[in-house]
């Protein structure tokens, strides 16, 4: 019986595409009141991969726990905040890694997502890490200016593989999320 449980458990861990982004901290911008925050909460709650949300009303921040095994759609989170009438000021993803080599301007496939690491040194990451999404519309306009000089690659401007990264088996319209390790 123990063996069966162990096999099932290991099987779950190794299913390709299973979400390893466990949680996220999102700060919304453009609001101060609880009524506005409730609109954001209600939108985020409708996402199929969101398990639980804790709200920090004073900081306009939302702590999202994701469901195990359900792929996380990062753009859907941003779209929900915008549907509520507001914007994303910051999105930090908490994800676990197992000996993943990353370097500046390198793309890695991470459980169905293409991540582009920006600004950091060449390293092998292991264990729980916090990744800040720094794409356009994921930071305030003021913050975004700081990130613009980090790369010359076109994908940072477009958010998709497009001309600069469509090679290596990626389609031109493939979404690339630009992240920094916190």
């Amino acid at each position, binding site marked *: 019986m123990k063996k069966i449980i162990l096999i099932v458990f290991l099987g779950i861990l190794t299913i390709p595409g299973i979400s390893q982004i466990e949680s996220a901290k999102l*700060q919304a*911008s*453009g*609001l*101060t*009141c*609880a*009524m506005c*925050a*409730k*609109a954001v*909460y*209600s*939108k985020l709650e*409708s*996402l*199929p991969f969101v398990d639980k949300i804790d*709200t920090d*009303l*004073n900081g*306009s921040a939302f702590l999202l726990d994701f469901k195990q095994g359900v792929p996380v*759609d990062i753009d*859907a989170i941003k*779209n929900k905040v*915008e*549907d*509520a*009438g*507001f*914007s994303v*000021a910051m999105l930090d993803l908490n994800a676990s890694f197992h000996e993943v080599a990353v370097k500046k301007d390198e793309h890695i496939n991470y459980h169905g997502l293409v991540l582009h690491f920006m600004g950091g040194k060449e390293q092998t990451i292991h264990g729980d890490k916090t990744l800040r999404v720094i794409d356009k519309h994921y930071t*305030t*306009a*003021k913050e975004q200016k700081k990130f613009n000089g980090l790369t010359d690659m076109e994908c940072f401007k477009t958010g998709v593989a497009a001309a600069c990264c469509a090679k290596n088996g990626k389609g031109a319209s493939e979404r690339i999320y630009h992240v920094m390790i916190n």
Partner: protein
Amino acid sequence: MKRLLIFACVLFFGTAEGQELYVFTGPASNMPAGAGGLKYAAKLLEASDGRTDQRHMLEWQMGFSKKWMTHVSTSVSNMYGDYLRWESVRSYTQYRFLSIDDVHKHFRAAAFAELAYSVNSPRYDELSLDGDQSGVSTGIILTQLLHKLAVSSTLSYTLSLQDRIEHMGIHNYNYNAFNYSLSAGYLLFPRKYNGYGQTNFNLYLELLGSRALDKQAGFVDLAPAVQFIFSSSTKFNLGYRFQLAGDMQRMANNSFLVSIERTFLNVMNRKNK
């Protein structure tokens, strides 16, 4: 008492931060996409013969997208007759075309258009599409939120589309007007949030003006108001509006407004994307 209230409002606004869910006007921000809202409002004023005139309005609000919302409303009143009777329908639509957000801040701009049909025969220079007259109106709203303080301005043009009747042999009613407002709102309580269930208390002070474009007449009103928001979804508003200066022929120079409004999030089905 009136002066004391104004002083209190100015004092609070002067110290800092507020809200933009104005009682007499609206902000450039829209309701959430997919949300609905139901509003009941009553306007009460003392008529020239000393009786209390009243108007009751019911409005349904829809947020079709993050940038576009529409309101439809209908009203009954005894302002143009001896008894309460149905008098008008109105449609209002707003499109937010600019949104610059920062943490606890935003600057937004929206354009709106309004169309109203009323069975009333206008007797006054003041143009109002809230049940008094048939007409169209269009304008822009600019809103700045800075922490707990929100300041907003609305600039609009209103055109009456109604056949005029002569009153006392004089045919001098106003056909179109330029309207302007400057509103400030302040979130007074809670000072610190600890949940969606906390009752919020907002203070408002609005300056509401109108200038006739086809005759020499205008007014400027001041309108203090208070607002309670229960469970982050139901607003209760109480406001008083009085004329500061003006030479326009109006139904009344002052009035009370009481309204209650409930927002229903996610009433329209949208894909979870």
